């Protein structure tokens, strides 16, 4: 469970996250909002790249903000980035293994864990193929494998379906749904594809201009008028 309380982030003159209080309970949770709503900034706070001006984040009862950025991976925080970050110079196996070897998991189970993560995402290429030679779709899957290897507790996915054709998005949605049950991790999914979000996530939170405008069961949230108007750009009459 991620409990965010009164979280505020300020950059010079801008407030990308403005006094947000929200809880991501369990399973797969959606985080949606128009461009510039503060979704990626929120992920960056969780990763430790951005220091919040105020507020607290407790993850499974622990104060996440106290942890040094690179130690959060060891703690069990994983993420993917909007622009994919699979390492071209390394093979698929090395890409996944390097996350594992910097996390807290024991050395003995490493190989099996790495291979089962690669197996989980369903990559057909040899694990020893260089990532530089893979297709965009395969590199996305490598990133998902990187996010689930070892013992993840929180998996943050930042627009994993961006640019993927429909059929691939379906496969990805299937994977995202299986992460909580197979790896026991809480998933937070940021995406603009509402079919994907409503297909994967039981609960969803909506940000707009840095403020939380709705949260709760996904179906309800997507029917919420404030959410619809935020997405369609309709000005609030009030």
């Amino acid at each position: 469970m991620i409990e965010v309380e009164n979280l505020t982030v300020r950059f010079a003159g801008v407030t990308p996250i403005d006094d947000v209080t929200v809880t991501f309970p369990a399973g797969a949770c959606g985080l949606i909002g128009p461009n510039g709503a503060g979704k990626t900034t929120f992920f960056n706070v969780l990763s430790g790249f951005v220091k919040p001006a105020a507020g607290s984040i407790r993850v499974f009862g622990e104060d996440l903000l106290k942890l040094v950025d690179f130690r959060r991976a060891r703690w069990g925080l994983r993420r993917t980035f909007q622009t994919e970050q699979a390492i071209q110079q390394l093979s698929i196996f090395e890409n996944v293994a390097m996350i594992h070897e910097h996390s807290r998991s024991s050395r003995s189970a490493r190989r099996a864990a790495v291979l089962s993560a690669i197996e989980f995402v369903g990559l057909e290429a040899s694990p020893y193929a260089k990532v530089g030679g893979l297709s965009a779709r395969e590199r996305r899957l490598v990133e998902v494998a990187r996010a689930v290897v070892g013992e993840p507790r929180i998996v943050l996915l930042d627009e994993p379906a961006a640019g993927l054709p429909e059929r691939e998005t379906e496969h990805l949605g299937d994977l995202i749904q299986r992460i909580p049950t197979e790896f026991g991790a809480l998933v937070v999914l940021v995406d603009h594809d509402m079919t994907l979000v409503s297909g994967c996530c039981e609960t969803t939170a909506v940000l707009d201009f840095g403020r939380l405008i709705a949260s709760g069961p996904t179906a309800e949230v997507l029917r919420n008028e404030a959410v619809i108007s935020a997405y369609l750009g309709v000005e609030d009459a009030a």
Partner: protein
Amino acid sequence: MAVAEAGDRRNWPAAVGLAGPRNIVRAVATVALLAIALFLIPATLGGDWVNTFTSVAIYSVVAAGLVVLYGRVGMISLGQIALLAIGTWTATRLSYATNIPFPLLILITASITCVIGVLIGLPALRLSGLYLALITLMAAGAVNVVLGAIDFPNGGGGFTGRTAVVNLSGLEPVNRPSGAGGDIAYYRYVVVVCALMFLLTLVHFANKPGRAWATIRESEPAALAAGVNVTLYKLWAFALASFITGVAGCLLAAEVGRPTVYGFPTQDSLTMIATALIGGIYTLWGAIVAGVFMQLVPFIFQAEWHINPNFLLIIFGIGLLQVLLTAPGGLVDQFPKDMAKLGRAIYGLFRKATGAVRRSG
């Protein structure tokens, strides 16, 4: 995904790829190169040539340091020749002051150079790109100024080890390893030590530090998110590069015997990175090519063709431009591709010709 396929996947050997065709080619090339370096060159070439190849081996280790720093981690350093000078100075001073065995002299020199290199690398934790390049270049300039003032030790006492001896030939040169005092024996000794430094670097690349470095190069936020202690691994890269450069400095001290400040112009640091880029900064093969460009090519220009080797700067400049524009992987990446292309072209012509003969016959 089929279950059977998943089952097969688990059975893949831990190091699939070690037996792959590319690695077999690499292994054969390595053995051939070592055989040529250790046996063919000393057996067929004369004294000056062997000394030049000693320098080639030493400078390729310096270039290997750049492969670590820039090729793997993405940190640019323009101060590697200054670091080499520090290694040479340290080895010279220790050699005059003590009588320790040569392998130990290498280790102590490399360790001292390593510490200094890490200190120079400290700004790298905050700076990158042009700023890091400037800082390292200025550090190299500073080292040159200091060396210009204190000069290389010549057997005197005190920290600087200088004595006012006028007759240079009366000075004892830096000791070479026992049993490898002759030029050819020392050349072989250098090749073996340099091969060990390449091996040390390869071991790093193939393991946890190598993967962490590749991640940092790709993106620092991604590395942090992957749990990489970016500070530690950047300093580690500087430590490794400085350590092997220190080893090279020690080998160089015993090669030249009486090193001078003139052997380490700051400009060489620039030539070093240019040749490393031309050779191919992403692999250690490129480092060997860089060593050849730094030492062998100037020697051929001067001794064989009687051309001023300074003209090479222009050629390197053009070569660098060509590499940056068309072949970022450098010669070692581009040459095999071009050869394959040429082979296909010749084969195509050959087929055309035989086809034409058949038709006319």
